[in-house]
């Protein structure tokens, strides 16, 4: 879909009001992730939308709500006593790919050589961790999207490949921006979220191996994301992990 600035401009107000259906919301988020022309307009729409609740008469608060909230806070504190990490201020510059280790082999076509390593999942993850996977703390790409405080970003890079992922939690949209070698015939790239306990959940197939693909997903429990190479149609579990990056 060729989604441009005119489409975005027509849609920003609806986006600020949470009125876009999922498909169109993903298209807009993809666009906003790289286009800075809408920052000011979206920010102004959000400022208006944020004041609309003031027009609603306040009903009486339920008696037990405050206590329930604090009890839930106490429970969560008890089970997760470690303070949440404070992220660095957002940067808008493009990520600097991490240099691969000198000994890393050059990428080859997926049907052999370097890629064949990844047909052995256990070995692949080990090597990935040691040589290829470089986790980069990224800022948010775009000031418009930066206003969503619930954003997680990460990236990984290796020889001939890179992946940047931003998850916009309040929108429930994850954008994968990748630059990967062409897959072999009959193979596809598949995106995954990985929970903190190591469980892989498929987000879907990448539409391109160069550029952005957005997925509607609840990734609030994700500790990492990954891309794997799979047979056409995708797999239930990743069989050939290529890149992985922790949030």
């Amino acid at each position, binding site marked *: 879909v060729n989604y441009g600035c005119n489409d975005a401009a*027509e*849609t*920003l*107000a*609806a986006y*600020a*009001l*949470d*009125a*876009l*259906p999922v498909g169109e919301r993903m298209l807009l988020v993809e666009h906003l992730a790289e286009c800075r022309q809408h920052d000011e307009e979206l920010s*102004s*729409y*959000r*400022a*208006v*939308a*944020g*004041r*609309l*609740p*003031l*027009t*609603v*008469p*306040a*009903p009486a*608060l*339920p008696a037990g*709500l*405050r206590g*329930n*909230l*604090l009890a*839930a*806070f*106490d429970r*969560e*504190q008890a089970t997760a006593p470690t*303070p*949440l*990490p*404070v*992220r660095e201020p957002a940067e808008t510059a493009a990520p600097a790919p991490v240099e691969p280790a000198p000994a890393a082999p050059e990428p080859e076509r997926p049907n052999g050589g370097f890629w064949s390593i990844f047909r052995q999942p256990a070995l692949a993850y080990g090597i990935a961790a040691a040589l290829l996977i470089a986790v980069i703390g990224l800022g948010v790409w775009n000031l418009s999207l930066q*206003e*969503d*405080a*619930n*954003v997680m970003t990460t990236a990984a890079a290796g020889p001939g490949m890179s992946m940047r992922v931003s998850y916009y*939690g*309040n*929108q*429930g949209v994850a954008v994968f921006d990748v630059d990967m070698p062409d897959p072999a015939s009959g193979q596809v790239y598949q995106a995954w979220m990985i929970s903190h306990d190591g469980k892989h959940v498929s987000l879907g197939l990448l539409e391109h191996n160069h550029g952005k693909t957005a997925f509607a997903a609840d990734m609030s429990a994700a500790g990492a994301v990954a891309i794997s190479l799979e047979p056409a149609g995708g797999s239930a579990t990743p069989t050939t992990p290529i890149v992985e990056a922790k949030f």
Partner: protein
Amino acid sequence: LNAPDPTAESERTTDEAFDRKLIEGLQRNDRESLAAAYDSYGGLAFALASRVMGASSDAEDVVQESFLALWRQAPRLDAKRGLRSYLMTIVHNKAVDRLRSRGRRPEAVLNEDAPFKAPEEAEPAHVAEKASEADEVRAALAGLSDDQRSAVELTYFKGMTINDAADQLKVPVGTVKSRLRLALGHMRKQLEGTT
């Protein structure tokens, strides 16, 4: 922490400092800061959730989840933006998501007693000069055309997507987008200089 009135004009500077303290407290996982945030903005949060979802336990759940989400997001909050803005975004997101995930079609009839309906005698500019922030926003809403106001009502306050609103209003989706754009643009102009 004593909660100021979040809608009072004279309290805005105090509100900003208060919000900063709350955000700093939430970042330290301070329970009292969460309680103070609730005391300040719980009523507004519950009003919005109830408006979108209808008075129900769902609205209570949304409010509780929203405050917990606010706390979890505290490390990434920018104090300059203000806590209310973040919280209202979260509440609306969650209310709308819950509404839509259950396949619940929002009410099809516009509320004739909508809170933003203009008082017949109200001169928006006059109202904005002397009234509270809430009155200023009501006045800005009152300055919209009926078509624009209906589009805002159905999407923001009823939680409809633009597609559902278009069905309801029997107009193309593009027309709903256009009305929303014009509505927020008009309100932005009306509210300029009032913050």
